[in-house]
């Protein structure tokens, strides 16, 4: 199937995330899911799949202000995550490097 034109993306402050999972159901296109990566505090982290529209629902709902939201113009393709894998091999993934946008 052809991939839809990505309209938006987010930067996630994984250091501050407390793994509350509120962003997951809040996302209208359902492109956030919990990964099995943890930050240094031990919290599970969310990850972003293709299809973000930049609507900002995650930013509104996040109690720890972990989201920065972008609208993409033109032929923008968001970068593929270097440490992304399929569902199957998530157990072997290392602790995520904590980021601050």
């Amino acid at each position, binding site marked *: *199937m052809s991939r*839809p034109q990505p309209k938006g*993306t*987010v*930067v*996630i*402050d994984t250091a*501050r995330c*407390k*793994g*509350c*999972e*509120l962003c*997951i*159901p*809040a996302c*209208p*296109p*359902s*492109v956030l*899911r919990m*990964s099995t990566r943890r930050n240094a505090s031990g*919290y599970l982290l969310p*990850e*972003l*799949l*293709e*299809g*973000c529209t*930049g*609507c*900002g*629902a*995650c930013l*509104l*709902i*996040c*109690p*720890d*202000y972990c*989201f*920065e*939201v*972008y*609208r*993409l*113009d*033109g032929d*923008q393709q*968001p*970068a*593929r*995550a270097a440490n*992304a*894998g*399929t*569902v199957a091999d998530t157990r072997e993934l290392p602790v995520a*490097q904590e*980021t601050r*946008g």
Partner: protein
Amino acid sequence: MSDLTSSDERLRVISTDAPPGGQSRKTGDFEPALTLMGEHDLCPGCGEPVALRQILDSIDGMNLGQKTIGVVGIGCYTALTSLMDIDLIQALHGRAPSVATGAKRMRPDCLVFTLQGDGDMVNEGLQEVIHTAARGESVTCILLNNGVFGETGGHMTATTVLGQRTKNTIDGRDAKRDGYPILISEMLAQLQGTTYVARGSVHDAKGVARVRRFLDRAFSSQMKGQGFSFVEILTMCPTGWFLPTAKGPEYLDEQLGAVHEVGEIKKDGILIERKVSPGR
């Protein structure tokens, strides 16, 4: 959008470590406006910082950052004062409405609001908010209602709903033993000094956006000198509700929201007709 929810193997995980290169516009910052730092130690899944974001963004959106005095009560949210880059006065449990009154009388051109939890406002400070509303003070009282005293670990307040388990109603609030919850927004709306009353909930993004609109209207009403305005914001407290964080929004919407109903209750001094759910 349905093809996006099919098998995960077909979906790429997108990097969220850094801003996108190329042509893009940032449409949302990490931190709310008027914030000194975004880090806080409130529980995972707490709804209070979600509400705070809307309060600060609303004040900034109306360009009132340098003309605002916040009066803060005592509860978990008290710790959020370290984050807020607006002038604040810390009040005692329940006493913020009076402090706000004194401040507003001396600084009538400032936006003066209180930030209080349900234990603070509806238990300890019930008479203060009622008198301030009845007097028609042009201040905005904001209630963060999670149905518990969060800071002491999750105990029954005057807004705890029947059946709700707390540390001192461990088998659920029982009407005969513990009485009935107070619906404070409806109560204050009856007073003539009250101009604007609304209750919102931060259980989902749509609710959060609605809270923002209610705050904008309340603050606007105050700046026009139109009397007492009140915004109640239902917030999640998974810790106080003995729930995993992910279950907080649903509990908020279905348990608290069924009793403390979301919506605008009074506007421009006129009560709004609302459908009252049966069997409350």
